[in-house]
């Protein structure tokens, strides 16, 4: 009987300990797996974002197809610029800078989206000077910069 009782107590303890160990391992393992998955997911998203940003920026290609100047007085002079999206993804023109040797003029846009293979024109008031060369710098929402030089 004593032997039986002593034996029964040792068995119970081992089971409990084993259960605790198993539970502990399971909990810790699950925690580690969850943590690692979460961590990898974060990295994955980061990689995805980096990839998308870089690839889309690479694929952007904008040409300044035509620029012409109109008007005769400072009050009504203007510049008409046509952009052509010659790349394979859409882009968004956010800013145009007109830089001369003496001045810089900026135009911002909120509706400058251009689909692939499409063109878009904009006309802005601008007091151009005949024969004075102008650097025309176009910035997109992906921070791509395209430039050309024109002379009225």
């Amino acid at each position, binding site marked *: 009987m004593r032997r039986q009782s002593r034996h029964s107590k040792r068995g119970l303890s081992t089971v409990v300990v084993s259960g605790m160990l198993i539970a502990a391992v399971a909990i810790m*393992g699950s925690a580690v797996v969850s943590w*690692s998955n979460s961590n990898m997911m974060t990295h994955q998203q980061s990689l995805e974002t980096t990839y998308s940003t870089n690839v889309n920026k690479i*694929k952007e290609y904008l040409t300044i197809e035509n620029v012409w100047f109109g008007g005769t007085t400072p009050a009504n002079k203007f510049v008409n610029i046509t952009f052509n999206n010659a790349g394979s993804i859409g882009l968004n023109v956010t800013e145009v800078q007109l830089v001369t040797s003496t001045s810089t003029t900026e135009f911002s846009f909120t509706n400058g989206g251009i689909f692939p293979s499409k063109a878009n024109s904009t006309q802005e008031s601008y007091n151009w000077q005949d024969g004075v060369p102008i650097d025309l710098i176009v910035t997109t929402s992906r921070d791509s910069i395209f430039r050309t030089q024109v002379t009225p």
Partner: protein
Amino acid sequence: MKSRRGLSTVIGAIFFIIAASSTIGYVTYSMNTIDKYNQSVLEKNQEDVERSDEQFKITRITIDNNKLNMTIQNIGTLPINITRLWVENTTDTDDTDRVFKYDVKQAVYPGENIIKVGQNIPLTIKTTQAYDLKLVTERGNEQKISVNSANTAPLHLQIFALPEEVPTGFTTTLLFAVTNNMSDNSVLTNLTPNIVASPSSGASAIPKSSIIPASYQVLNPGDTAYFKQTYTLTGESGESVGFTASLQNGYSGQSVSQTVDISIIEQAEQSQTSLTSAGLGSQSLPDDLLVLHKETTDALDGRQLYGIDPESSSDTGTIIQLDSTDAVFYTNYDSPLEVTIPQGKWNATLRYLSQPMPDSLASLVPGESGRDGVIYHFEDGACGTPPCYVKDSSGDSPTNLSVPSTASNRPTWSSNIGPHSSGAFSFDGGDYLDATVTDDTKMEERDITTAGWFRTSVGTGVQVIFRAGDDGDTGSSGEFYQISLNGQNLRFNYRSDNNSGDNLVTCQTSGFNYANNNWQHFVAIRDDHRTCKLYINGTLVANDNSNGGGGNTNIDVSGDKFAIGRDPSCAGGGSCNYFTGDLDDIIHWDDDELATTPSNQIDDLYKTNFGVASHKVTFTIERVTSTGLPITGGTVIDSPSYQLNFADGFGDYDLTTPPDSKWKQFNFTGITTSDTLVDDNERLKFKMHFENPADSGEKMKMKLKIDDQGIVSGQLKSSLIQMPFPDKALTGYATYDNSGVGHMNVHNTGTNGAWISFMSRMIFDSMDDSSSYGALIKQVEGRPIDSTKDSAFFAPGDTNDAEFDKPYSVPGDASTTLVPEGRYKMYAFLSGYDERGQIFLQTAYVGVVRVT
């Protein structure tokens, strides 16, 4: 215990698997992402490369009916999609009517063209205004061109007159040069010249030709356009004609001018009687003219070159076959004698004639071979009011191709649109030329060949280039012979027997668009009644001998029409099948034997230049010793590979001695930049050497005519050189032996008969004007003349020999000084009266004579 340890292992394994699979998944994803990124970079690079490889150009631009008409050629290796055309009117200041954007959306494949771009856009071009055009491709590349922009800035204009001084009745050729030196590097289009002649009082200038070309379609930056026009000038010596050249649409007020002086050969003009003293057999010309003579005496291995007219009015000169014989001419020499010729232009005015066909084919095709057929080079578009004809150069009973009486059916001739800038006809889809089939045209032989050039941009339907056969020769019946475009393919077909089945023989190309608006050369050969062969640009593209047959071998079209540009059965209600495009050099003859060795005659036909570079000649003018040896630094002008136009004589003449009317004229010009000193015992040597064209096909024979009479008449019949006016005359070949009496031929060129009186004299004036000698006239035609007896009657056209006494310092007094040996200017003074009682007193300069 064993069992528990196993459970723990399983759990650990599960976690390991989870961890490992997560890690592997992440790494795989990362690698895929990197790979996609690399792919994107590669695609981007590929796009950039393709964008930079994209090349195209605007090869032609015209304004037709106030609409743009552009031809665009893809000169790269990638297909191009033209998306937009921008047009900016740089003249108009109205912003609302200044810049236009049009969608084009036309693809151009590598090596091909698209035509008529701009014809369908709603833009009306004003010819008085300037436009900047820009074509944009789908990849974002662009090409710019300016239209009518010659008026935006002054251009570099030049005008040359060749020669600048002419005798009355001679021609001068004006060259108007326009150089595109626009600072914006733009292409100029539609340069249309305007040349205005302003003769001084009494003079006249009559255009002998229109301005050639009438306009330049495109002039690239840095290039020069040359316009040519020939005028015949008449007037008195000292009169002149001013020429002013400008561009019709050029910069306001910009023009260039050139004056051409008229100098007349002296001749008697009293009482409507013209007695020309032909001193020592010849009449002198101004010191700056050197005539190419046929005589070889004292001219080393060449012929004489000096300023004396051909020997007599009946002299028809001689012909030099320049392709086989160098033409070499020498002036004479003397000592002491130094002649200085100032720097300037040397013009060689030459009469020549081209063989109708290249040398290797002369024995096969119509012309010198005596074979029958037709040769239409289309080098003459002159046609007044019909009936008039296109000339046949075959030389054997030429067949004149009729120009339709209805103006709208007449093709338009241009002098320089052909495959080698030669003359050609343009057919607008309702034009044609035709003639009746005769034995001489050889349309119905068993073995026949047809060759020619065509250019079209229309690639639909049937377009007849050449067809023999009349009403009923359509569909599956009738006998005919036809070369046509069937859609984009060239087709050669014929039927010689319609009595026993279809028997249609057809050769047709496939797989290539021949309606590509480029000139293409075809040779169609019928060998018996089953065989056809079709060559394009020297290459066999179709052949067949599996069809045809029947009893008849000849094509029965006798009495029918053959036509160029349509089906002649059109006149009888059949299909017209008009041709739209350009045609040139249509040749048809009665043989099928074109060899491929030793010379590929099919290739020769393709490569032969019937245009602006038909012949190449090296012109050399140099100083040589009295014996003809070269002198170091003696080259005055050396002009190799000078190109001469094809000079078509239009056949129907004796090819050995073509009549005067057949000879063409050209001017060779060389310029010296320093004075030329012809020293003691030196001669001038003028040499023309014919070159075999190495790059433009077969040798085209040419003849050169020299020493013909009539150089002072309205029609230039001989060849001569005009050089800058020398300080003294070069030594000629006329001599006078002072031990004997002098003789002179006197010719009555007027319309009235006349008598010469004893007052006539011969005068010798020393070259330095220090001494002079005179000789009395003694007799004419053996009849003595003195104060009591005049000469016998000179009928119009007569040439009589006049004998003069020896020249003395006191004429007639033998005790005074006899003219010593040396060089003298010789004059003839003729006195007399004509059959109407009018006197004439005439002094004629005979030329430089050497007294021995």
